[in-house]
């Protein structure tokens, strides 16, 4: 039976930059991910451990903003204004009117924004209240996970 290196065990190596484990050691995925995040290089028997190509959580910093309310002139301008000011890039916009309700959805990129998610959310909330619409901002993964396999 080969030795196993788990995430709990690898945390003991935090102070080192590199570790070389005996040949045949099995390193768990969580341990690899942890090591990667903390700048720790692992090799087994002299060979660097290959990083798994699939990422578990994209955490892409993309979000979906939805604006729902009674059709009003100036909604797009107001929301875009806030986003521009916060350096949030708009990737796509879609809008529709269903039963008198105006719905606008935007895909945005928060990568270059210096404001936090909470700050952006708060400002959008406040703006929504001013105009009389509901503005929601949610990480794109919510929709990715729910509506795509």
């Amino acid at each position, binding site marked *: 039976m080969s030795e196993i290196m*788990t*995430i*709990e065990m690898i945390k003991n190596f935090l102070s080192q930059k590199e570790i070389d484990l005996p040949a045949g050691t099995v390193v768990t995925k*969580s341990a690899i*991910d*942890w090591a990667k995040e903390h700048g720790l290089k692992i090799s087994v028997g002299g060979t660097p451990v290959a990083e798994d190509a699939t990422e*578990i*959580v994209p*955490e892409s910093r993309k979000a*979906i903003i*939805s604006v*729902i309310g009674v059709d009003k002139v100036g909604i797009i301008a107001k929301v875009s204004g806030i986003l521009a000011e916060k350096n949030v890039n708009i990737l*796509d*916009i*879609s*809008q*529709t009117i*269903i039963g008198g309700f105006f*719905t606008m*959805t935007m*895909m945005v990129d928060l990568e270059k924004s210096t404001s936090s*998610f*909470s700050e952006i*959310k708060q400002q959008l909330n406040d703006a929504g209240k001013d105009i009389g619409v509901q503005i*929601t*901002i*949610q*990480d*794109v*993964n*919510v*929709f*990715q*996970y*729910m*509506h795509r396999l």
Partner: protein
Amino acid sequence: MDFSSHEILETIRMVQMENLDIRTVTMGISLRDCSHPEIDKVCDNIYRKITSYAKNLVPVCEGIEEELGIPIINKRISVTPIALVAESCSTADYTKIAQALDFAAKEVGVNFIGGFSSLVHKGFTKGDIHLVSSLPEALAATERVCASVNVATTRAGINMDAVKMMGTIIKETANKTAEQDGIGCAKLVVFANVPEDNPFMAGAFHGIGEPESVINVGVSGPGVVLKALEKKKDADFGELSDTIKKTAFKITRMGELVGRIASKRLETRFGIVDLSLAPTPAVGDSVANILEAMGLERTGAHGTTAALALLNDAVKKGGAMATSYVGGLSGAFIPVSEDAGMIEAVEAGALSIEKLEAMTCVCSVGLDMIAIPGKVSPATISAIIADEAAIGVINKKTTAVRVIPVPNKAEGDWVEFGGLLGRAPIMPVRYLDSTLFINRGGQIPSPITSLTN
């Protein structure tokens, strides 16, 4: 747009109008290394370990709620069954340990901590006897501690000595919390075939086969399923099942997402998603209403068991695709006091304890959150437990009993626990005597169907 307006609105509607939420993110923590002969040292070890491992649980969950726009209703902790942790203690009364758990829970901000538990399906060790004997006092002396005792498994059979003892313990627990209508019993579950990774209270504990720590997620969304079914008034059972499957998939996917993010940010292994459909007392969040939407005048009508069987199965099929690791109870819950539709059905005289017992054959949890008259004898409570254990053992499923014999109240009275524990009308039980049966003691052997090797 990668997603249509329709899809985006569907998600928003589910959260804002149909009660889609993450019911719980539960961190399981091993306390196996906290054992010590001196109980004060055990308490200290437990308190330190829990507060250290779980210190970021609540803030991280709150951050996730903010970013995803999906409420995470409860943040909870489950621990190694305390009977094991305290086994080496020279003190017989484990109440102090329960209090240490309670303090730790309050310190990190979780609303329940489960694991004041014991596994006695084959018999008692000293630690088990002490834990079980401590239950009434421990549950009266604490607010957030949840307890469980596993009295049977398909492989081991049913420990009838334990069943007998638990009837008495439940009564004592009720009496010790008489001022609050026996609320101690709302935090105590007796199990058959208990799962080691259940994130829901009151039966959650961190099993022996589990790692140092783990994140388990419980999702919920009876309201979402109900809304989906309301659009299918003329559908046949195939289409009904399909609709539930798809909805369960979407609900469970949210659990998967939350679990992955929480696990990453807390640097804790992601355990399982429990895809149970768990109701709350809130309007529009009822499992009973789903059964009624399938075409029954009232939950409790003939046909209820079949409807629940369909629901339970469809939830599992849809949920299983949504997550890498399914665990916990994973099925439909039927807790009486926590489901507005169930309460109405009991009030209307449509739902009896016998019908509930039948329903436990096809869903994941047993007789749950049922208030019974305070005068019910310990032997009758034991007999109720024995029946549920038999159903679980023979059918290779988890069953449980969480009944509250409300002191000084009778059939027709109401009990009000508040919050997620809800309110319930007191249900009648049969008063025929089972004392001689319960007094026999010993082990009901495991069924032949358990010989699967």
